[in-house]
């Protein structure tokens, strides 16, 4: 039972990061109908910048803020300079361009920072509190929950309570009609990419200290888990992506806890295959119902 509790909390903490990263994928999917395979590489790039700033100034938090701002700028830049010019007549075009971006970003990071793991410090202790003899939550876990929770709440408020959020949703669902109503659709798309990339950067900042450290490919494995989370939840469903992230986090934690860490990546892929075969629209997607209505 102790072990189960420990694995549950560990899984939720990990899952929260996947949830944030999956949310970033869903934001772009909803806005542009592109799965942003470059999201991991983009997040790593901003993490490198963040740790450079943190090293130079001695302030982790300054670096943290820089990561988020760099995410916003990188996201906006990728949309404005690259993705806007992709011919969307075939869905594969966006994927291929995104994969090209991965190669470019990882290549540049390797040239600038070197292809070795660099230490990435965490801003809080990762030692768990002792609760009845089991080390459950650490300060860092609480930070992760708080940060991801804040992002989910802020994005929900943005999309449901503000004129800009309404514009962004309308532009995603019906670009031509939105244009006729005076919505600057291109600007909304740029904003969507910027926000998504910033959320991706946040996820990167949260997960990199818990893994081996900074490396150009540090987010590749995380991307697979988060992509699975987004598919499990339904690529169209922000709430689904958050729940999907938690599900994948728990699954990974239980599998590596009870069956061994080497099995865990296979379990993620197995989940992806099962969901794609059984419910390709995701467990929490409303779109299937809406389409038949």
């Amino acid at each position: 039972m102790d072990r189960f509790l420990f694995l549950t909390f560990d899984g939720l903490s990990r899952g929260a990061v996947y949830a944030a990263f999956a949310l970033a994928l869903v934001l772009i999917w909803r806005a542009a109908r592109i799965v942003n395979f470059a999201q991991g590489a983009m997040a790593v790039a901003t993490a490198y910048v963040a740790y450079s700033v943190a090293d130079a100034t001695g302030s982790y938090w300054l670096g943290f803020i820089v990561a988020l701002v760099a995410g916003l700028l990188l996201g906006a830049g990728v949309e404005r300079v690259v993705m806007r010019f992709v011919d969307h007549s075939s869905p594969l075009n966006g994927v291929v361009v995104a994969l090209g971006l991965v190669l470019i970003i990882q290549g540049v990071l390797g040239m600038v920072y070197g292809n070795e793991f660099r230490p990435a410090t965490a801003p809080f202790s990762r030692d768990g509190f002792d609760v009845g003899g089991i080390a459950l939550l650490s300060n860092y876990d609480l930070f992760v929950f708080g940060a991801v929770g804040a992002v989910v709440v802020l994005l929900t408020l943005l999309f449901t309570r503000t004129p800009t959020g309404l514009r962004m949703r309308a532009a995603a669902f019906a670009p031509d009609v939105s244009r006729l109503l005076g919505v600057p659709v291109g600007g909304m798309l740029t904003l969507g990419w910027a926000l998504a990339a910033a959320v991706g950067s946040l996820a990167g900042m949260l997960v990199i200290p818990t893994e081996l450290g900074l490396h150009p490919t540090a987010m590749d494995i995380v991307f697979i888990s988060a992509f699975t989370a987004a598919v499990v939840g339904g690529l169209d469903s922000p709430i689904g992506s958050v729940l999907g992230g938690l599900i994948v986090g728990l699954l990974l934690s239980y599998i590596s806890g009870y069956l061994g860490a080497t099995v865990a990546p296979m379990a993620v892929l197995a989940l992806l295959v099962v969901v794609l075969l059984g419910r390709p629209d995701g467990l929490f997607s409303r779109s299937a119902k809406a389409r038949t209505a």
Partner: protein
Amino acid sequence: MSALLEVEGLTAGYGAAPVLHDVSLTVQAGQIVAVLGANGAGKSTLLRTLSGLLPAEKGRVVFDGQDLRGIKVERMVHLGIAHVPEGRGVVTELTVDENLRLGGLWRKPQPSLAPIYELFPRLAERKGHLGHQLSGGERQMLAIGRALAAQPRLLLLDEPSLGLAPKITAQIMTLLRDLRDRTGLAVLLVEQNVRSALSIADQGIVLSLGRIVTRHDAATLVDDADLRHAYLGF
């Protein structure tokens, strides 16, 4: 007095073959102009070109003294042109209230939606419903209400009667006439339902294969049997 909308020698279409040829027309403030003609005559293309969704190949469009060449689609509503596209263009994933708010969103401060709900009590009842839960008539009301929330001076209305029961079509036509009389709204009304359109229009224009073949006062078009037979087929 110069016209609210002046179109001169407009040629436009999709790709190589133009759909519209050398179309000229004017709409005065407070005037309803019906654009009639068979399927494929270029009626929707005309509206899409006027609102900037399609680029014009040749010709000039002047709205309230301003040449519209090069004006972005999303700026049109700022100038006072609202386009209700064919198929109604309700954002089905948004609620009735969100759709309506979207219409007035570009205005600072944002206008109250109360007058729109007063005009369409049915929409007030269905405020929180999603677009895809509405009936065809409700969607049409929502699309028109949303356009009116932008407080336009010119309404480009594409086939409002499409798929609607005659009673609802009549309601919408009456509403348009009242709006014109009360607010001086100008309407360029594309319709296949000739009788309905001419019942409220001041002027009728008949398009055939992308060219204007005749234009008359609405009353003349309805009353003159020869014209009716020749151009409207009834």
